[in-house]
């Protein structure tokens, strides 16, 4: 992995051109973009005087001018206006358009509405009518628009490394097809990721009809094999469980992270259940038994840290206790008998209103047990329903890949098409997929980036981004969306449909035709045009979700059977593999927004780490940033340690997706590659890890250094019992405004305010990315983050309470508070930050001279300063991504959350044209729109009926640092928990303790 020096510069291993490249900020990656500037720069040197590019020259001029005391003064250049020759329809200059489409991660789609500014997709919103979104989005959907404009995307077809053309590729493929036709395609293999697209499935099926001997393999490093295998165990057939958290009162999660990870519908449902019909807080109870700490565990009323391999025992113990009429229970190493009994009583009392789920990574048997428990509790049909799998081909992907590798090794493969995915990087190490590829005659790789797999394949075809191509895809409940493009392929990319069309003998492959043809057959009839338009307009095909199916336990499957004895060498450790919270399986490694997004629980950016629990760290004398050597079944990697409170002892968690060397200038060399330790037989957890501490240190960039509240209670929390007893006592007296010597200001018209419900916030950070994308917030790079210069306008603070072994975790999103008595305003010498007549605390970038006094005076430290030129003003594609409604800030100016003033202004203008007031909900801030749980509410607090006014009238409302009398417009609703009275001693963390450091 990348070593660190005094400056903690990251060094990219082998850049695409082979030479070593040092970088520090996005602007520097851009410098490297120009080949003659791709030279090693001495670490620590902030600028490269040897290559003064245009900006460098301009800055030199600015410098000399400002030295002369008259900087930034020059005649504005004469501009030209270039109108269309023929104006495109429905396009008015300056008016954005919105189109419905869908994005899928691992084949599971989320419906989106994408904003198009003058033909450029710039912002992603959730599609309110799409079942998987309901208007919300996760971080991946928000960040995908940056992938589209990524200058590192592969831009040309290459043949064994040399630039070639699509026609040359088609010719090569067609010449090969003669031979394939001869032997029914015996040597042909297609490797895809999880496929849910009906059109693609149809194409593959017809391809297999054309070449009966060909095989379609499916592999994705983070897959749902165990979910389907569990179905086979319990019901004898693979099923797709669909959970209805909005109907569940008591939820038991067996290492399932339904509040984190991709997809937002579960979060929305869960949050909905916590607010009763009467508007009163009404939390059910969430039990979480989990290995690696997740957002679900952080939100749980009871969290039990169990080693990955112990969770099966817990599941069985629950099943047994449920079976026994008296409900007596045996304990397990992780969860005491008392706790299990208490949990089971809860489940029983809430039969048909409870829900038990297992994490995707858990072995099939745990899923099977969860299915069985739900059956016994009568939850099926109420809180959980089962349907046919969403994946077109639910067979085990691990087996599928293993078979493929075996075939290759046996020489049975002469043509391999890898459509999407990056198996050379992400396949389990024992399969050694990269080496196998060499044995194949013709290898083709279709992907967004010229990545590790492309390097090993004969042909690489640039893939069209999903915003550039037609397709269709299914959501978690099977709902089908037509994926329509917003822009023609920037770099002549092609979609999987087009590549397959070539194999199917179509001379001019066209993904639009492919999708449309399929649907004109699937939905034949006179009303097809209407159906097609409706599907495109609405963003999904109505009534296309998969119907629920009745299930019954397979004969011979008995959940009550005791767990098989599990023997292990206590001297050795477990290793747990987990998808990375921000770069997932590595596909987002070159996405700057996601790289710089602090990982919800560790607050780490730009790197992954070996996560260990406090006990293990203490026992082995490990400290954060210590480099350890992890050796597992012969393979070994070096990784920096990060201590995670609540992580089980005797286990190490490594997250996938890092340590890439052909990701692009952003992803290259970040973190270490955990796939090198992964094994195809135990993809998620294995025993027998050796951990050796080295003397090295590797500097990690975290955005939050202190995790205790220091007795200051920025996050207020109470149990439901306390709430009903006396909530005022718990909330303190900040609710009464202190006296002030200033005259009170009256706000006629609108008065904008925000309420953030900590009882709904899961800490997923979708708000941070949505804000970054809406407001042109630059990324700054690892070194700058280490210096404490990250630019996020809304950060999600994370606090721990209680012991390091069993902490309670709190999240708190912190945007600008828009204080009515804003301390920042009185100290700015040039009135660059002032109040407007609707109570917004404004930051006028072009007036700011950068004294930074306002940041000093801001008790919330939500102001962010451009210490250097962070915004990339060079790269055309990145310029095209920007929101034209928001100023791109230059170096030396302060910036901060504006409550999305551009959205307010545009909405107000539209309203005022019609002489009407803005309606409640007409203005959504970017963070509010993205929030999966609706924790953020924004609106006019002068309007007593607005949602925000109602929220602020809640007894749970409190102001952050209210004692300073800043009168913040952004206020919070306290966090509630509802621990099981029988298990008070088992409650995670002791609310009074403050011992985590």
């Amino acid at each position, binding site marked *: 992995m990348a070593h660190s020096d005094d400056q903690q510069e990251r060094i990219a291993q082998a850049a695409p051109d082979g030479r070593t490249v040092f970088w520090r900020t996005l602007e520097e990656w851009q410098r490297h973009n120009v080949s003659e500037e791709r030279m090693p720069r001495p670490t620590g040197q*902030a*600028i490269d005087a040897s290559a003064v590019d245009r900006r460098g020259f301009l*800055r*030199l001029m*600015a*410098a000399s001018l400002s*030295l002369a*005391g*008259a*900087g*930034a003064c020059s005649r504005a250049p004469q501009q030209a206006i270039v109108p269309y020759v023929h104006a495109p329809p429905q396009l008015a200059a300056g008016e954005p358009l919105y189109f419905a489409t869908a994005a899928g991660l691992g084949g599971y789609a989320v419906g989106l509405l994408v904003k198009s500014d003058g033909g450029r997709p710039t912002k992603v919103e959730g599609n309110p009518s799409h079942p998987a979104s309901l208007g919300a989005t996760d971080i991946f959907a928000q960040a995908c628009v940056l992938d589209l404009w990524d200058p590192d995307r592969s831009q040309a077809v290459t043949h064994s490394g040399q630039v070639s053309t699509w026609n040359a590729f088609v010719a090569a493929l067609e010449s090969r097809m003669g031979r394939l036709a001869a032997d029914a395609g015996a040597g042909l293999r297609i490797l895809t990721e999880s496929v849910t697209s009906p059109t693609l499935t149809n194409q593959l099926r017809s391809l297999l009809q054309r070449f009966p001997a060909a095989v379609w393999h499916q592999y994705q490093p983070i897959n749902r094999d165990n979910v389907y295998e569990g179905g086979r165990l319990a019901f004898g057939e693979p099923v797709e469980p669909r959970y209805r958290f909005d109907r569940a009162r008591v939820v038991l999660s067996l290492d399932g992270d339904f509040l984190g990870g991709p997809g937002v519908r579960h979060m929305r449902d869960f949050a909905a259940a916590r607010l009763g019909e009467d508007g009163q807080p009404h939390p059910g109870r969430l039990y979480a038994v989990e290995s690696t700490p997740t957002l679900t565990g952080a939100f749980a009323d009871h969290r039990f840290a169990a080693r990955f391999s112990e969770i099966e025992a817990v599941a069985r113990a629950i099943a047994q206790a449920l079976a026994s009429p008296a409900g007596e229970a045996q304990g397990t190493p992780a969860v005491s008998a008392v706790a299990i009994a208490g949990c089971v009583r809860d489940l029983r009392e809430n039969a048909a209103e409870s829900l038990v789920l297992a994490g995707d990574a858990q072995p099939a048997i745990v899923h099977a047990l969860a299915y069985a428990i739900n059956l016994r509790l009568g939850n099926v049909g109420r809180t959980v329903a089962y349907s046919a799998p969403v994946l077109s081909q639910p067979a085990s992907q691990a087996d599928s890949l293993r078979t493929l590798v075996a075939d290759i090794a046996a020489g049975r493969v002469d043509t391999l098409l890898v459509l999407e995915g990056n198996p050379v990087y992400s396949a389990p190490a024992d399969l050694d997929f990269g080496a196998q590829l060499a044995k194949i005659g013709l290898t083709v790789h279709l992907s967004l980036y010229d990545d590790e797999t492309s390097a090993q394949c004969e042909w690489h075809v640039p893939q069209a981004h999903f915003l550039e191509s037609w397709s269709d895809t299914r959501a978690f409940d099977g709902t089908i969306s037509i994926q329509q493009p917003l822009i023609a392929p920037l770099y002549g990319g092609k979609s999987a449909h087009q590549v397959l069309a070539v194999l199917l003998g179509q001379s001019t492959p066209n993904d639009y035709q492919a999708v449309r043809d399929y649907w004109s057959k699937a939905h034949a009839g006179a009303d097809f045009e209407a159906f097609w338009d409706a599907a495109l307009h609405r963003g999904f095909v109505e009534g296309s979700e998969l119907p629920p199916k009745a299930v019954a336990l397979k004969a011979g499957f008995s959940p009550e059977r005791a767990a098989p004895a599990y023997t292990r060498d206590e001297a050795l450790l477990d290793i747990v593999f987990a998808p990375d919270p921000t770069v997932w399986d590595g596909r987002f490694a070159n996405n700057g927004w996601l790289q710089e997004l602090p990982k919800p629980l560790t607050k780490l950016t730009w790197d992954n780490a070996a996560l260990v629990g406090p006990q293990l760290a203490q026992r082995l004398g490990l400290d954060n940033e210590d480099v350890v050597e992890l050796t597992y079944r012969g393979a070994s990697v070096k990784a920096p340690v990060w201590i995670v409170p609540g992580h089980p002892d005797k286990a190490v968690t490594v997250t996938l997706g890092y340590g890439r060397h052909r990701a692009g200038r952003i992803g290259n060399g970040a973190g270490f590659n955990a796939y090198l330790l992964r094994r195809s037989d135990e993809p998620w957890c294995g025993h027998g890890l050796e951990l050796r501490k080295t003397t090295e240190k590797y500097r990690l960039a975290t955005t*939050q*250094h*202190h*995790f*205790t509240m*220091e007795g*200051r209670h*920025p996050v207020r929390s109470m149990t439901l019992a306390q709430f009903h007893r006396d909530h005022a006592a718990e909330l303190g007296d900040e609710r009464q405004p202190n006296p002030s010597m200033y005259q009170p200001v009256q706000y006629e018209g609108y008065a904008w305010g925000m309420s953030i419900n900590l009882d709904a916030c899961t800490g997923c950070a979708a708000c941070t990315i949505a804000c970054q994308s809406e407001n042109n917030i630059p990324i700054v790079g690892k070194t*700058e983050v280490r*210096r*404490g*210069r990250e630019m996020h306008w809304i*950060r999600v*603070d*994370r*606090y721990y309470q209680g012991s390091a072994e069993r902490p309670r975790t709190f999240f*708190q999103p*912190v945007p600008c508070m828009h204080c009515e008595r804003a*301390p920042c305003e*009185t*100290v*700015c*010498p*040039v*009135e660059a930050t002032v109040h407007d007549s609707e109570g917004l605390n404004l930051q006028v970038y072009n*007036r*700011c*001279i*950068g*004294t*930074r006094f306002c*940041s*000093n*005076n801001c*008790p*919330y*430290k939500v*102001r962010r*300063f*451009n*210490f*250097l030129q962070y915004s990339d003003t060079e790269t055309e594609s990145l310029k095209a991504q920007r929101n034209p409604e928001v100023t791109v800030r*230059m*170096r*030396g*100016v*302060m910036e901060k959350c504006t409550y999305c003033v551009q959205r307010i202004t545009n909405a107000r203008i539209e309203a005022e044209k019609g002489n009407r007031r803005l309606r409640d909900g007409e203005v959504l801030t970017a963070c509010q729109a993205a929030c999966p749980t609706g924790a953020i509410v924004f609106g006019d607090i002068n309007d007593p009926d607005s949602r925000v006014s109602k929220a602020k009238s809640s007894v749970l409302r409190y102001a*952050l*640092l209210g004692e300073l009398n800043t009168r913040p417009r952004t206020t919070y609703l306290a966090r509630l928990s509802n621990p099981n009275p029988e298990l008070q001693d088992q409650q995670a963390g002791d609310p009074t303790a403050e011992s985590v450091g």
Partner: protein
Amino acid sequence: MTTATPDTFAPDLPSSLGAASRGEGKSMAVRLSDTHSFASISEKISGIVLTMPTPRWWTIAFALCSALSLVFFGAISYLFYEGVGIWGLNVPVVWAFDITNYVWWIAIAMSGTFISAALHLTRQPWGASISRFAEAMTIFALAIAGIFPIIHLGRPWFFYWLAPYPNVMSLWPQWRSPLVWDFFAILAYLLLSLMFWYLGLIPDFATLRDRARSRSAQIAYGLLALGWRGEARHWQRHRGAHLLLAGLAVPLVVSVHSVVGLDFATGNTPGWHSTIFPPFFVAGAMFSGFAMAMTIAVLLRRAFDLGDFITDRHLDNLAKLILAMGLVLAYSYVMEIFMAWYSADRYEVYTALNRMRGPYAPVYWALIVCVVVVPQALWSRRVRHAPWVLFGISIVINVGMWLERFMLIVTSQHRDFLPSAWGMFYPTIWDWATLVGSIGFFAWLLLLFVRFIPLISMTEMRELLAQQQGGS
């Protein structure tokens, strides 16, 4: 134009003033050695500028300081090129070395004008022999101090937006901001100090003009002397103006440093938000100002063998002033801690404790030693009469005062209200280059000063002598 010979000055002295100053200034009165005549004073002092061959140490020191000055301006140029990000600043610590240096330099700028003005007003002629270079020191330090508020800006080329001038944006600066007060305070103080210094120089320039042998020197000093002919009328106006400026100077000195104190006191940051700051800053400024004056006095005394003019008694008086100010400062530190405790404000208490126990504790304790403990040695008469010991102490004091500003500024910011936003500041090479460079530039200016301008006021020396002769 008639040229006056120095010896014609004494008779021109308004007798009233001689009388006025006679018999006063007993308390700290200083006697020049009687070996001196008016002529010998002029000879000795103007000789340093006109006749003395350039000493070797001067050339070496000048070369070194020139190099450091280049470092200073190199660092600033690079700053303009790249942005303030080259320093170790961050959020929460948005001010560190830049503002520390600013406060430190402006404090050093304190003593000069104050010494001569205050002593002039209180008829304490003993200060005459140290006032000239102290004033020079003031102006140089102030000029350097003035640089920092400008270069610390994110967009320094817009610094003039702090000034209220008519513009097409029809906008004014924000009068509630102490930074705007700062702008005016520094500007006024700089202009006044310049005028005060130059006014005192005019008669001496005339002397130099008349004593100069080379024509170039005659022209140069002639221009500077603004046609001074030593007429009674000239003297009368000179006195009047000098008295007037002195009267203006004293309140300005106080105002400048009060405003600097308000820069912080108006902020809500724990550790800053305190009414004690203005007086506290004035005291601190006098303290470091006197210390720097002491440093330079000892050096000049040795370098040009000015023992006759800068006597042990001078150093003794300076040392006493330093000691007094040191005690005021010590009191302020105690009060800060007391008020933090007395306020019972969670954040103030934490900041106070954090200074003593937190990551920057070494800075805190180092400054306590330098600023509170070491100066106590000045109680001893023997110490006050050992120039090189005084020199050492004054250096320690100024190091301590720099540390104090760093402590005040950084430890207050790095852990304020929300623990989630706490951070640390680590200086970069550019922070250090700017600090060291500024010191080098200061010394560079002083070196030029001693070579081209009489470093002791000949006029006032003659007055002193006149009084002594009149008095004895």
